[in-house]
């Protein structure tokens, strides 16, 4: 039994992790590790970086090919794709967000990790809408980039 089957929380060792150089340009981290019948991320990728053996296989990202365009983030039905870019001491995480109030560019939000713990503040640098999913980019300190996977908009 894997730990996440009990807790619901993935750890970094469950994931495909990019190199420092790949993170510098920004790449999509696919937090989708189980065999579930789903493939919209593959269709959404404009550079064919995301691939799948068959519809049930977990998706794999070719980080060298991935351009970090964030198109897959708003497409994934499981809200399980995050684009991470790390440069020096700063990082940008692009994540899907489906709550109100919608985050506004230029505002500061709480940055939450995979267990929902608040780990610091983040600045919203970009918000685009893909259907009813907000694709939100936040800026934060680089040390948190691989941990922060959610935000909370304080009212």
């Amino acid at each position, binding site marked *: 039994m894997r730990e996440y089957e009990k807790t619901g929380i993935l750890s970094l060792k469950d994931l495909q992790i990019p190199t420092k150089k790949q993170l510098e340009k920004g790449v999509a981290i696919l937090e989708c590790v189980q065999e*579930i019948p789903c493939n919209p991320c593959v269709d959404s990728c404009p550079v064919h970086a995301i691939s799948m053996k068959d519809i049930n296989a977990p998706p794999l990202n070719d980080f060298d090919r991935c351009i970090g365009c964030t198109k897959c983030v708003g497409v994934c039905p499981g809200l*399980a794709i995050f684009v991470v870019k790390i440069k020096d001491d700063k990082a940008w995480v692009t994540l899907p967000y489906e709550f109100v109030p919608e985050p506004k560019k230029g505002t500061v939000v709480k940055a939450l990790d995979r267990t929902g713990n608040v780990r610091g503040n983040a600045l919203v640098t970009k918000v685009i809408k893909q259907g009813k999913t907000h694709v939100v980019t936040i800026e934060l300190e680089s040390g948190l980039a691989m941990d922060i996977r959610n935000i909370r908009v304080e009212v």
Partner: protein
Amino acid sequence: MRVNGIPNVRTCIAPLKEGITVEMQEKLAELPDAIFSGEPTKTLNIDVLIVGAGPAGLCAAIESATQGASALLVDENQCVGGQLVKQTHKFFGSKQERAGTRGIHIAKELEQELQNLQHQGKIQLMTDATVIGYYESEKKHRFGVVKRCEYQSTLYDVRCDAVVLACGAMENMLLFPGNDLPGVYGAGAVQTLMNVYGVKPGDRVLMVGAGNVGLIVSYQLLQAGIAVDRVVEAAPTIGGYNVHAAKLRRCGVPILTSHSIKEVYGDGKVEGAVVVRLDEHWKPIKGSEENVACDTICLAVGLTPSTRLLSQIGATLEFIPEAGGYVAVHDASMQTSVKGVYVAGDASGIEEASTAMIEGKIAGLAAAIQLGRSKNKKLLAEYRNELSQLRAGPFGEKPRIAKEKIAKHAEVHHA
């Protein structure tokens, strides 16, 4: 419950109108004689009757009609879509199954296809109507259908060559002290309240069950601004997809496996619950009780296929635990042991909406082929292939086993 003198009414889906009388009903009720008087029974002759306008029934009706069979689609609700109308999350699957589209939008797309076929005179739609029973007939299948309209009801005598029963399923209840207190809901009821009617079921919820339904509804509760205290799951692992569990966890909602609900307490309504940890034999561990302050209990502990009409028709039923209970034995074309009687969706074994839609297409197409309206056996094979692909992964194991068992029974009965 009795509504305007009519007994056995499902008040949860009865439309609220000025001057309506809703009463508690004591045990079995008598049908008032006067209810169908004044208006003669109307007879309808059609090729295929489809019962239930959820994902399976909608697809079956659209497929039958597209293939040239005249179809009548009946649903007891006010609108079509079944469970889709409250599924605000994006669907999984591939492009063919409309992956990435929200259930509510799939309902709209299917409704549009239905309306196009209605305009062409290929489908008749009857909402707010109930199929009340199956009747003797020499050549055709014959059903009584009650169509409600304001305070008048009309009885239809529907005669058809084939019928697709896509009646869906009922939510399972759990036994524990206090389970009859107001505030104890099925997950489907909570979803209807908040996503269809826009009514908050409560302020703080304890979710029981970490299958996909429990996880998805928990997330939708958060989206509606309702707190979810925790999710308890009796099994040692989370049953639903990790991506759904991860969404909840990063919002700070704990998911406790090997935990169950012991009792619910409150004065006239839910005021809290006691949860307990289970050992490896699923027995409660003494001293592990924990109090949870909440005003709503949401039960997401599985579904049971609706087979009452199938049973009345005389279709062979078998108890298949992996299918959720008694289901009609059916072949790969979704035909039951009774010629011309098809089944699709949750009524044929509990699964999910993507596979229900394909099963509906298979049943609708197979019925049209049986009636000589279509010869497209190649398309039938394509649909079957799509279905087996969706069931190929580990999460498709349970329905796969269920369908294999059903197929074995079908062979035995056939021989």
